[in-house]
Structure formats: C-alpha cells, structure tokens
C-alpha cells in the first residue's frame, strides 16, 4: 500500500514524517477530508474564533498531490452578551 504524508498547518506547521498507508490517491483524499474537520473539532474550542486548517498531502516521492483548507470564522456580535 502506498504511503502518504499529511502535513498540517493550523497557525503552526506540523510536518508528517511518519505517514499513513492509503490504498490509493482516492483513499488519501478521503483521509484528508475526514481528518481536517476532526482536528478542527477538538482544537477549535480551546482557541480563537478565526482559524484555518490546511492539509498538504505528499506522496512517497514528495510530490504534493492534494491540498485542502477548512476555515472557521466566528464573530461575537453583541458586546453585552460577551461581557
């Protein structure tokens, strides 16, 4: 099974040196699609209102084959409600 590497940027860059085995490109794309919202789910509540999560998927020879960005943009609207 080919190995794909999923580098994640979310304010800071985490380079994936270990990789994950995926059957093919399609499986790697699905893994990226499932991972970004999952990481965002657990990271967002501990952080600010504006965050972008980007994944870069590299294949075994280092070519970036897929990229995706998930953005969260929250805005508190009523100053009374936030005080």
């Amino acid at each position, binding site marked *: 099974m080919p190995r794909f590497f*999923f580098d*994640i940027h979310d304010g800071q860059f*985490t380079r*994936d040196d*270990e990789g*994950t*085995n995926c059957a093919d490109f399609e499986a790697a794309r699905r*893994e*990226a699609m*499932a*991972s970004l919202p*999952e*990481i965002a789910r*657990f990271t967002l509540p501990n952080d600010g209102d504006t965050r972008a999560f980007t*994944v870069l998927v590299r294949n075994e020879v280092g070519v970036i084959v897929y990229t995706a960005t998930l953005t969260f943009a929250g805005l508190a609207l009523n100053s009374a409600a936030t005080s």
Partner: protein
Amino acid sequence: MLAPQNDSLDRLIRKLDGITRLSEADKQAIRGLPVIVKTIGPGQAILHEGDPSPYCCLILNGWTLCQQLLSDGKRQILSVHVANDMPDLQSLHLPYPDFGMFALTGATIAFVPHVELRALMAAFPTVSAVFWRETLIVAAIHRAWITGLGRRDARGRLAHLFCEMRARLTAVGLNDGDTIPMPLRQTDLADVLGLTSVHVNRTMRELRAENLVRLESRRLEIRDWGALSAMAEFNPHYLYLPKHQSSQKLR
C-alpha cells in the same frame, strides 16, 4: 501439551485467586478442567462474528483484538486483550458472538470447553461468582471506553488508553519499569479511538513533543506518568486490579 496445559490452568487460578480468594477445593476443581492450548499467528482469526464457539478463551500470551466491521470496511476495535484476559466469557450464555476476535501479535490461547466450565460453575459457587465478577470488569472497561469515544478529545482518548494498558500490563508483570509493549499500530489506534489515522499520528506527536511518552520499536515508554494520567483523568479503580499489584505501580 501436558505442561502448557497445567501451566495455563495455574495461570487461571492465580488470576481468579487475585480477584476472589479461592479455596483449595476450588483450585483443585479448576485444575481438572480440560483445555486445548493453541498458538495463533499474527492477523489470524480466533472468533468469527456470528459463528458459535464451544469454548471460552484464556489468553496465555500475545495480544488479541475484538472488533465489529461495517459494510463499507470501517472497523471499530471494541477491546484489547493481553495475557490472563478471558475476552469471551459471555459466550457461555450468549452462544453467537456479536464481534470477531483476532490475534494482533502471535498469541497462545487456552480454549476451555463450555460444557466442563458450566459443570464446574454449577458445583463451585465461588468459582462461578469469580467468573461473573471478571465479566463485570470487562463491562466496566467497555464503559470507560464509551465515555472516551463519546466525550474525550483526541489527546484524552490516547492518553487514557496508554494509562489503561500500562495499568493492565503492569498487573500481569508485562511492564519493564515505565515501558510497556505497544504492538498497536497507528491504524489500530485509530480504530480503537474512533479517530482518523492522520489525527492519531498528530496527537501522538504532540504527546511526544510534550515529553509525556516515547514510542519506539513497538515499545511505549511513559516518561511522565503524573502528567499523562492527569491529562487522561485516569482512575484505575474500574479495572479492579489486585491491591498489591495496583499500589506499587501507580505513582
């Protein structure tokens, strides 16, 4: 196979005796159980979902996993078993397993026939009670996992699993100080924790960067038990480990 057979029954007696004090007559009766000892290769199935087995398994060494599969190929690992576990005691009363079990590593398993086990339990109420208690502990572990899967974040799930495995492996003497075997690979951890493999990889790197654990050559070193168990909100009480074993370990 006489030697390993006797050895496996002695292991069973020591385990049960650690849960509830057994009388000499109880022990003698357990020693009379017939068992079949088999070696199972890594990846080999031990139980198939829906396929009744006339035996209960006692794991003598190695790791096994219980799992359920969905039609799209997704899998949930329901439980992880190590030496001295009896993963399918419920098969005594629920003959059609609602899960499959396979060997993660090479494993040696003692198969105890239901017929003789039932006869033993009918004749020796203390033995019957201790097996019931063992089944309830397995259920307690399932509850801890449900809470983790439903409500813990990724770090909490991974940290809790590592704490639990350290406690369980230490109770059966399979730790080397703060280091335990960890044959679960990234995809296995993902299927235990209900996370994607990529997310497990990232979470593992975080725990490593914070110097809580170190994973190398399938061995996990817990470098900061205090911080890891605090992050996991780990309380070993649900494991009901024998007192003398749990007190020396959880510092």
